[in-house]
Structures are given as C-alpha cells and as structure tokens.
C-alpha cells in the first residue's frame, strides 16, 4: 500500500494459467463457471437494486412510486420529470455552484498538495520528517472534533455564508500532500540528481520532471477531491445559508424537506445529482481505485 505503481488492484497482475493438479473434465468446469457467474450476478443485483429503484422511480408519477406490489418498470416513462425539475427548484444554480466549488477546491488541492509533496519527498532539510508526521497525525483526528473552532474562526473573519469558508477549509487538506508524496517517493532520486547536474533548479525539476511523471497520481487526487467536494454535505450545510449559494446536495435535501410526498420528483433530483459523478467515475475509474488503494484514506 505504499507506492502507486505496484498497487494496481483493479487490474490484477497476469497470473499463470491455473495448472490443475488433476485433469478435470469439461463438464463440471462449465457448471462451476456458470455457478460463479450466477453468484456474482446475484451479488451485483443486490448491490445495485437501490440504484435501479431510484432510476425507475424517477420516471414515474408521484403516486406510482410506493405501490404494492412494487412496479420495477414504470408503465409509462415520464421523461417530463427531468424537464419539470428544473422549474421546481433552481437546479441549474445548484449544479453550477457545485461545479464551481469542486473545481476551485480540486485545483488548489492539486497545486499546493503536489508542490508541498515535492518538498517532503525530494528536498532534504532538518525538521522535514517531523513536519510530515504532524500532517499525517491530523488525518487521524476526526474533523468533527475541531469543526466548532473552525466555525468560530470563520464567523469572526465574517466568511460564513461565502464560498471562501468552504474553499479555505477544504483546499489545503493533508490528504493531497500525503498521496502525492507517496507517489514521488517511488520516483528514483537518481532522476532528480541527473536533472540537478544538468543545471535544473528544484522548481524546474518539479515542473518539468515531477509533474509530467506524476500524471496518474494527479489524476487520482483530482478525481477523489472532486467527488468528495461534490458529495460533501456538512461543509455547505454549516456554512452556506443563502439559497443562491447552495450546492446540489443542499438543494436536494431542502427539496426533500419541503415536498416529502413528491417521491418521483425527489428521485429525479437524486438521479441528476448523482449523474455527473457516475460519468466521471466511469471515465476515470482506474485512477479512483488506485488512489484509494494507495492511500487507504478518503
């Protein structure tokens, strides 16, 4: 779990073909394989049922959602839900706010995180390792234990109910530094040494050598940060009170609070709030999984 390149769990390393100790006949093997698929399919169904139900409900009328027996496939597909929702709540504003916050925080995290990680991984100076330990230690402290002092600080600085509070609190996380440092540690020092002899400054090495080499790690960090910010509820919930600043998560939650019987509309909103993340995840799945397997941390 230490270095990225040797921990690609999603893509299993090629294993030697199974040499069976005793020759098996073809029949049982086919049966075994069918059983394995059947089992996996059952597991996948169990995991995905809530999603299926969400999508199916989003295409129904409100009074068709909670029926006995369950209607898994709607009799008629009400695609109009997906048009109506934009008028019911300021969906476009919420989505735009979420995109803005996620992009801003991700960019800052990438920039400052990778920059600091280079200092921790490749520049030697006294006190460096102690400082890094302080970074790591804070990851283990639950955020809930210091959310109140953070809140007091933001209140005194009059930054509550602005995006500054969220951005400042989330853009400098220790996590990005940790993830990037792990990756830089796996890049051989000889490479930096050679660059130094060629006359590159440390900043040059960071920009021309490390950044291009660490693209996979940057992608992991970017995706994880983006998704975390997009899905974050407590941050915006604590700090953003004006409706026009709300993220999609807050908007959806408030819609549920106000119209708790509009089951289909709620599900339509839920689908729309999840959709961007699903697309992002399907595109960048590889980096996601690697980032998690490397760090083991959110």
């Amino acid at each position, binding site marked *: 779990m230490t270095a990225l390149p040797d921990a690609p769990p999603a893509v299993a390393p090629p294993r030697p073909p199974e040499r069976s100790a005793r020759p098996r006949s073809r029949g049982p093997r086919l049966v075994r394989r069918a059983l394995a698929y059947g089992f996996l399919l059952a597991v996948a169904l169990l995991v995905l049922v809530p999603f299926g139900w969400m999508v199916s409900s989003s295409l129904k009328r409100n009074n068709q959602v909670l029926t006995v027996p369950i209607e898994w496939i709607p009799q008629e597909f009400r695609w109009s839900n997906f048009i109506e929702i934009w008028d019911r709540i300021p969906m476009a504003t919420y989505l735009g706010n979420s995109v803005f916050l996620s992009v801003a925080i991700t960019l800052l995290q990438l920039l400052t995180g990778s920059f600091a990680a280079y200092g921790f991984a490749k520049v030697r*100076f006294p006190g460096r390792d102690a400082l890094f330990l302080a970074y790591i230690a804070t990851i283990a402290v639950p955020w809930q234990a210091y959310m109140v002092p953070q809140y007091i600080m933001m209140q005194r600085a009059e930054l509550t109910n602005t995006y500054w509070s969220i951005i400042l609190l989330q853009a400098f996380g220790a996590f990005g530094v940790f993830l990037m440092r792990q990756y830089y540690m796996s890049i051989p020092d000889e490479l930096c040494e050679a660059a130094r002899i060629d006359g590159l400054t440390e900043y040059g090495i960071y920009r021309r050598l490390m950044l291009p080499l660490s693209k996979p790690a940057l992608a992991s960090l970017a995706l994880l940060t983006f998704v975390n910010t997009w899905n974050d509820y407590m941050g915006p919930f604590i700090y953003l009170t004006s409706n026009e600043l709300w993220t999609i998560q807050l908007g959806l939650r408030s819609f549920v609070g106000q119209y708790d019987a509009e089951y289909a509309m709620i599900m339509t909103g839920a689908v729309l709030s999840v959709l961007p993340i699903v697309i992002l995840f399907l595109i960048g799945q590889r980096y996601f*999984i690697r980032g998690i397997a490397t760090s083991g941390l959110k």
Partner: protein
Amino acid sequence: MAQAMTRSAPGGSPPKRPAWRGILIGWSFILPNFLGFALFTLIPMLAAFALAFLKWDSYNSPEWVGAANFRRLLSDENFYVALRNTFAYAGGHIPLTLVAALGLAVALDRKLRGVQFFRTAAFFPYITSLVAVAVVWNMLFNPTAGPVNQFLHALGVDDPPRWVASTDWAMPAVIVTSVWRDMGYYMVLFLAGLQTIPKEYYEAARVDGANTWQRFWKITLPCLRPTTFFVVVMLTIQSFKVLDLIVVMTDGGPGRSTLVLSQLIYREGITEGRFGYSSAIALVLFVIVLTVTVVQFRLNERSSTR
C-alpha cells in the same frame, strides 16, 4: 502506510550545498500548503483542546472554568444517549462492513471474464452522494409500501419492523445503509491485499488436499492480516465520527434514537453557540477514538510477535 510514515525519505540534495539553502528551498515548497493547513486545520485542532476548558458562548466572552464542562457532561442525559448510540452504530457498522467488504473482495478476486464490471458495481455506492443515498434508502425503508418490507412480507414476516419510523429500528436501518455504502471502498483495500498473497501457497494447499474453506481460513485470512488491521483501524475512526449520514437520513430521530456524539457537538457548538461545552464533547470523542485505535495497535503488535 505505517512504514511510509516513519521511514525517512531518501532526500536528494548533494552535500555540497549549504544547509540554509536546503531549508529555504524545502520550506518554499511546503509553505503554500502549510499556511492553509496550519491556519485551518492545525490551529483549530489545538484550539479545540483549550476550548474544552472554557465557558464561552456566542454572547459572553471566554472564561476559564477548568473541568466544569466535563462535570456538566456527566449529568447531561443527551450525552449518555449519544454515547450509547455512537457505540451501537460502531458495534454494527464495523463488523458488518468488514465481513461484507472481505466477502466481496474474495468473491471478486478471480480470473473471470467481466469481473471488472462486478467490481465497479460493488464500488458504486461509495461514490454516490450521501443525500441521494439517504433519500433512496429512506423510501426503501418506508414501513408500509417500501420495497424492503414488501420483500420481508414475501418471506413470510407478518410484522416487519417500521425502520426509520421506529425508535428501535432506526439505528439498524442507518447501519444497513452505511454498510451498503462503505463496503465497496474497503473491498478495494482488501482486493489490493489479496494481490500480495503468493499464489504458490494456494497451489501447495491444493496439492495437500485442502478444500476452499480450509484455504480461506489457513492462507487467505492470515496473509491478509496487515490489510485487515488497517481496514479495522480506518473503519473504527470512520464509525465513531459518523455525522453526515445521520443528519441527512434521520437527523437523530425519531426522538433521540439515532443521536450520535458528532451530532451533539454540532448542535451544542454551531446551532446553540455553546463553544466551550461542545468542545468538551469533542474532546471526549477524540479520546474515545484515540483509545480504541491505540488498543487496536497494541493487540496487533501482540499477536504479530506471538
């Protein structure tokens, strides 16, 4: 990860450069992040400790009161309820997620065409936003017409629980939801751990006639120990600080049946503005997490030297 923390990095600079230049260059890299980190994480964290010994609310100026906040805690019924609920949540969430994640990882650690699809499916809930998860599960758990209870009816349960509408079953409902959401994440960690087990072990065991069950208990589990330990520590920290799922799904209710410590911190500190008192609760939460983690580390050391 543990080794990476303590191992000092093989730093790169040749010895001919003066030391102060190294310090200057090193800090210039770290500073942009460190400023934000120190100001918005480190200082609040240290302040939280001090705040716990102050009497301070939004109207009055801070005043040193020693352990008064903690004495008040001992007579606060909400605190006991939240403490018990937090342990109940952790007691359900930790073992169930562990078993589910390990089960998924073992099931999906095979060379089978399309296995990647199943891994993606299992990981999917984790990237879904909590609000969507809570909204969907709240409806699935609907006492009268929810799919969960319809399923239980079909199985012959005449009087299925009322889940989020009942004080006894709200916590189990929250636990089920959180296990479903988190298992894919820990599955990824277990899958990474499984890749490190040499395949020769299984070959040898098969030649010796060990069946699947024996191979799992005698090879897979012992070899996975470092991963399992790491997962348990992460799960513990995550469980004790649970907040957002509860806020979105039940908001502590019905009654106080799902009120947890983090939520009490939020209510006292941010809603009510009792900064000192809420920090005392936060300190208790921190000490609990720290104690459990330290005990886990000790247990792990002892059994690995045995």
